[in-house]
């Protein structure tokens, strides 16, 4: 029998080899993280050193991205800013993933009244527009990066709780979970050894995709002055500081903008690659 021609779908899938993409964006993301860790050693100038004689210089060989209005080197500030931006995003995503998953697994496992109550609370959190809520939190707790993280965490965890809850509900009805219960597993063992490993896939994918989104949201809050406070180098607040100069010294806005663009892109594409790679149908092919 003749081997059937591969369908268009198969060709496209094979063409965009999932594993290569995953490796590529994985390496890119790792590079970003490494440069954030060693940012202080990488930047050519002290990012906080003011030199008013050198203020608002155009991009040149000495200052590739020019200088801002206090004469600080933009490239150094962008590099150091990556640490604040990337690590606060990671912290935020870690918090909402852990907290949301814990709540979701609890709800899916316990069901009943506690589940109902927590799910209504999560509906309440979802119903708030993010920015309004962040403004309210900033009003109560004051501005600052950690409060911005808290505000975003409070409205972002329900997504994870919902995924974890629905996954837990379906796993607890499987016969392998019944078999594990019959093997005498305690509740904690059931959850740690059987439920969590089986629900981790979609949660990890969502978390990777969320890194880009949360980076944008944090930068957005910083831009509005609700996040990182000057002189801390952070991409969103750097754009905010220089936005009045957009007409005269566009490079000063351009540098942090490009940095946000690249970082968000890399993490979003990495999230896509992880999702494709996790898809069992794709894995059989590879």
């Amino acid at each position, binding site marked *: 029998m003749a081997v059937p021609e591969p369908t268009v779908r198969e060709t496209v899938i094979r063409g965009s080899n999932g594993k290569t993409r995953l490796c590529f964006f994985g390496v890119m993301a790792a590079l970003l993280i490494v440069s954030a860790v060693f940012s202080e050693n990488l930047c050519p100038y002290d990012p906080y050193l003011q030199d008013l004689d050198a203020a608002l210089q155009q991009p040149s060989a000495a200052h590739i991205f020019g200088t801002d209005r206090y004469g600080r080197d933009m490239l150094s500030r962008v590099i150091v800013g990556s640490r604040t931006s990337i690590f606060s995003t990671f912290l935020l995503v870690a918090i909402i993933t852990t907290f949301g998953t814990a709540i979701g697994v609890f709800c899916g496992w316990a069901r009943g009244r506690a589940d109902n109550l927590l799910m209504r609370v999560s509906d309440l959190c979802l119903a708030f527009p993010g920015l309004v809520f962040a403004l309210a939190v900033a009003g109560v707790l004051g501005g600052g990066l950690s409060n911005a993280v808290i505000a975003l965490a409070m409205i972002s965890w329900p997504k994870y709780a919902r995924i974890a809850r629905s996954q837990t509900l379906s796993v607890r009805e499987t*016969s*392998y979970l*019944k*078999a594990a219960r*019959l*093997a*005498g597993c305690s509740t904690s063992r059931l959850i740690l050894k*059987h439920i969590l490993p*089986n629900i981790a896939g979609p949660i990890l994918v969502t978390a990777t995709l969320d890194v880009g989104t949360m980076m944008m949201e944090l930068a957005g809050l910083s831009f509005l002055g609700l996040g990182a406070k000057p002189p801390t180098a952070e991409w969103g607040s750097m754009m905010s500081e220089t936005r009045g100069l957009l007409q005269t010294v566009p490079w000063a806005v351009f540098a942090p903008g490009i940095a946000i663009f690249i970082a968000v892109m890399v993490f979003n594409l990495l999230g896509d690659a992880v999702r494709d790679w996790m898809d069992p149908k794709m894995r059989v092919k590879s």
Partner: protein
Amino acid sequence: MTTPILQVQNLKKIFTRNGQSDFLAVDGVSFDVAPGECVGLIGESGSGKSTVANMIARLLNPTGGQIFLDGEDVTKTDVRAVCRKVQMIFQSPQESFDPRRTLGDGIGESLLTAGEPASETAEEVARLLEAVGLSSDFMCRYPHEVSGGQCQRAAIARALAIEPKLLLCDEATSALDVTVQAEIVSLLSHLMRGHGMACLFICHDIALAQSFCDRILVMYRGKIVEEGLPDEVIQSPKQEYTKMLIDSVL
């Protein structure tokens, strides 16, 4: 007379579904299983057989009635209280093993939770695999890496690990093809003789139940409508429903 290993009295299960009327899945079922006896529970799909088995294994709480295991009332206890005495084999072998863990992990789990050290567990798992006719390298395989028949053998090994007194087979052979089915059934009967284990054998194949079981219960819409020796039930069924069931097979 010896005390029965399993005594089920007037067992009831009502499923309440949101927005729908309550559903009486099991309606006053009573029967005994003597030590070493193999009782067949047959009936059409949806008659409540799995629900009965799940309640006996304490994976599901009954709405009413009582379950005695080895003379002890276990109606109010949970699965951990009975899992040293009752084990279960499920309908679809592959789905009864955690896809993220190896067969060896699954088989040895009941030994680990009973407090056996990991090194001894591994040896025991290899021995169990051998007893069900699998080589010990199946220990490191994942459920999707073995065939349905091999997986069901592993499931039998898992059920036998702690030497239960009662084995619940919930359509253990339905998902397998006929030749593999025969292998699994002969393996089961061989092992049960060896261990002196009792068995509640659930299936909807009346011919299989006839050859395998000492006694047959026929279930219909949540009730046991007929009970007797396999040959009696098949030769001279008392109920219309049983007649239909036999006619549809023969």
